[in-house]
């Protein structure tokens, strides 16, 4: 058994920031990451990170109040307003801190952090490092981790690279630690900790067409779900309007923030034809632009009935090279086109999970000592629709807050040292389950199940939903859950058994997918990213509520809880 004061699961932005905070409080912290931290999906974030710094000439009157309001309005009023306020208030401090740690932000002519406009924001508020903001931020944080790892005066900070956490141990409402699989050896190990934080990212790979890394399977949401922690608002899946046709690689909203146009096959800037995007045009919020592109595709005004064009040509080579170099590189490498001379074929794709592990604005879950932050969590600041530039911000704001809160929790804890027996039992049980999976001799190839699940989620639980499509999806996911009992591993060796790891994760994906489906089916309204063709209006009377999904072996049990209001009255969301 391994002992640490705090275990952080996930080495992306939220996890690293939380671990750093715990280390600054002189506690022994371990990071368990499925991949090397710098391979986390945070690295793929392109466009930027929001903070009302007022560095843009048109942003001088920006403030945390306006930032918080834009966040709440963007969320279609499902965000908890206290959390949105907390995030906006801390934003500037966190960005400045990242700059002080060496993050190479792009600069204004007078040397300040540059900012650009993003969808749904009243001011140019998005700080950026070209179109590689996530890459720059995570390397900066990882550098600080290296620094503190090397600093003798700090407490221990240990990174366990390539460990897959398979279960969370909670005893009588108190978190005791986790069980994890070491990919290098195939062995299970128990990690005892007084507090555990999950920062494992989203579950984009429930879908075929996703901008997410291959590692975003949703396992990090499934593990606490199995341990009794509810998942919140899982039906809200964000579809990014502009992903590369074919591979669904993200074409940052920065493309539109810098002035790119969206055109259909008639060469029209079609967003002008829709009332909800007429004013904001290309920088209208993501849910709106995604729906309008999809409508163009469905109504036959798209190229090859599949994509529209993202036209950057008028921006000129110099601006594209300076502000969108990665976009240009991706287009060249994956499509063989240069956006300086040719428009980019794009289509909407799954991008972000607004929902996640149910936590409050301290990052604390209903179980004592169990925390979550980043995309894996649902604080909730994004409500039904996240604004661009707020996801990166959420990771470092709530990573820090959760790190601080869990440190205080550990200092105030009175039953330090309890839980050894529970963890030993959990480890033994997990070993039994693993052995059973290794010896399972059914006829199902796990990768086929995964493929069917992803296709079904894309077709039935996508941008437009109906009772019929969601009911179909529910039938299918139950069928897949049954068939999963008959999976057979193709490889049963120990070291780097990715067949084993991905089959374990597939179980998580299936159970998490069901929370998305069931939540969407029960929410008979359209709000933010969820558009129900059969219920096209928002229904505050019934659904100004968070969905909570609790694990049961028969499928998720739903409950609801109120949204925290108090600053702004919900009203119709008009742009």
């Amino acid at each position, binding site marked *: 058994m391994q002992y640490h004061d705090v275990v952080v699961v996930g080495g992306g932005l939220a996890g690293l920031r939380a671990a750093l905070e715990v280390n600054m409080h002189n506690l022994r912290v371990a990071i368990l990451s499925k*991949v*090397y931290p*710098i*391979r*986390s*999906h945070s*690295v*793929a974030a392109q466009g930027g990170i929001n903070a009302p710094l007022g560095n843009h000439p048109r942003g001088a009157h920006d403030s945390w109040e306006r930032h918080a309001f834009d966040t709440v309005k963007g969320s279609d009023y499902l965000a908890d307003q206290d959390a949105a306020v907390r995030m906006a208030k801390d934003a*500037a*401090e966190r960005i*400045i801190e990242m*700059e*002080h*740690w*060496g993050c*190479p*932000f792009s*600069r*204004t*002519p*007078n*040397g*300040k952090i540059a900012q650009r406009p993003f969808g749904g924001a009243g001011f140019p508020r998005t700080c950026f490092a070209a179109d*590689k903001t996530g*890459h*720059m931020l995570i*390397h900066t944080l990882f*550098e*600080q981790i*290296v*620094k503190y*790892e*090397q600093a003798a005066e700090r407490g221990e900070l240990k990174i366990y690279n390539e460990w897959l956490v398979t279960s969370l141990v909670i005893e009588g409402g108190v978190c005791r630690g986790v069980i994890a699989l070491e990919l*290098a050896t195939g062995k299970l190990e128990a990690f005892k900790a007084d507090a555990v934080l999950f920062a494992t990212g989203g579950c984009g790979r429930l879908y075929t067409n996703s901008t997410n*890394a*291959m*590692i975003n399977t949703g396992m990090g949401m499934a593990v606490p779900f199995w341990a009794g922690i509810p998942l919140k608002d899982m039906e809200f899946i964000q579809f990014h309007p502009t992903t590369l046709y*074919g*591979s669904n*690689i993200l074409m940052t909203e920065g493309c539109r923030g810098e002035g790119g146009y969206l055109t259909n096959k008639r060469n029209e800037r079609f967003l002008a034809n829709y009332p909800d995007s007429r004013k904001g045009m290309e920088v209208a919020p993501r849910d709106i632009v995604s729906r309008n592109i999809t409508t163009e595709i469905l109504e036959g005004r798209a190229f090859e009935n599949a994509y529209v064009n993202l036209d950057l040509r008028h921006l000129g080579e110099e601006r594209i090279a300076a502000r969108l170099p*990665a976009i240009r*590189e*991706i287009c060249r*490498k*994956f*499509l063989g086109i240069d956006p300086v001379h040719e428009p980019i074929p794009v289509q909407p794709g799954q991008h972000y999970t607004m929902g996640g592990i149910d936590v409050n604005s301290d990052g604390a879950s209903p179980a004592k000592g169990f925390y979550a932050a980043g995309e894996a969590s649902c604080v909730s600041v994004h409500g039904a629709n996240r604004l661009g530039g707020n996801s990166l911000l959420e990771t470092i704001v709530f990573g820090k807050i959760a790190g601080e809160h869990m440190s205080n929790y550990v200092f105030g804890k009175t039953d330090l040292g309890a839980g050894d027996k529970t963890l030993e039992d959990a480890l033994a049980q997990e070993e039994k389950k693993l052995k059973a999976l290794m010896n399972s001799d059914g006829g199902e*190839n796990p*990768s*086929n199940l995964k*493929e069917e699940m992803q296709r079904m989620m894309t077709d039935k639980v996508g941008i437009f939903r109906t009772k019929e499509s969601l009911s179909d999806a529910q039938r299918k996911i139950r069928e897949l859950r049954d068939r999963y009992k008959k999976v057979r*591993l*193709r*490889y049963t*060796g*120990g*070291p*780097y*058994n*990715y*067949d084993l790891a991905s089959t374990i994760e597939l179980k998580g994906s299936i159970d998490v997918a069901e929370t998305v489906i069931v939540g969407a089916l029960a929410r008979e309204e359209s709000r933010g990213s969820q558009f129900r063709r059969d219920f096209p209006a928002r229904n505050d009377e019934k659904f100004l509520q968070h969905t909570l999904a609790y694990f049961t072996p028969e499928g998720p049990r739903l409950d609801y809880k109120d949204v925290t209001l108090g600053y702004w009255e919900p009203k119709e969301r008009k742009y």
Partner: protein
Amino acid sequence: MADLTFKIFRFDPANDAGPRFDTYTVPAFKKGLTVLESLYYIQDKLDGSLAFRASCREGICGSCAMHINGKYRLACETQVADLKSDSITIRPLGHLKVLRDLVVDMEPFFAKYKYIKPFLMPGDDAPPDRERPQTEGQHSKMIPSIDCILCACCHSSCTVTATDPEYLGPAALLWADRFVLDSRDNALKERLRLVDQLHGIWRCHTIFSCQEVCPKDLDPTGAIADLKRKAIRHRFLGR
């Protein structure tokens, strides 16, 4: 569409007497098919025991660096069609211990990166509630080096790394230069002390293979040359 033949390096040190190549036939099932997608096809449909690392599948995380038809590159951004051959041979990264199949031990590589103190050392207090100013010119100086994704292609292609395991190598040295070039950093002396040594910058033979293979088109050779110039100036002029 024609079928593709993949010859893939296989080795499990715990069970195999020696490495071998396994051959797989993959249909060219889509336009723009990448090597990584082909590897997933093999893992999913043909052989679940194949081990390789991957994450972002868009050329930014650096997980899937490997040796593909004679060159170190990222599997995710390498299109099969661009290889201009229907026979594709894949080996793991070089100069690093094979743990299984295409998975290598990255620890020695990261140890070198960590050795050069890859974090800002500004040496003075930052303005409390605002950024350290940096002009666009100062910022753009760093641009050639801040894009490094630590994929280790350069490390594996370097002939000096092959013969001197202690050589810091192109990636670590590029990172050292990245902080030297940062107008906010104030630790030139310390940084040069770390790299101006037997297994440091002077080991570079300027063969340019690191520059040639870098998937981000960076120039570690140039960065090392920059460090050499600065080290000499520092020795003789003290600045």
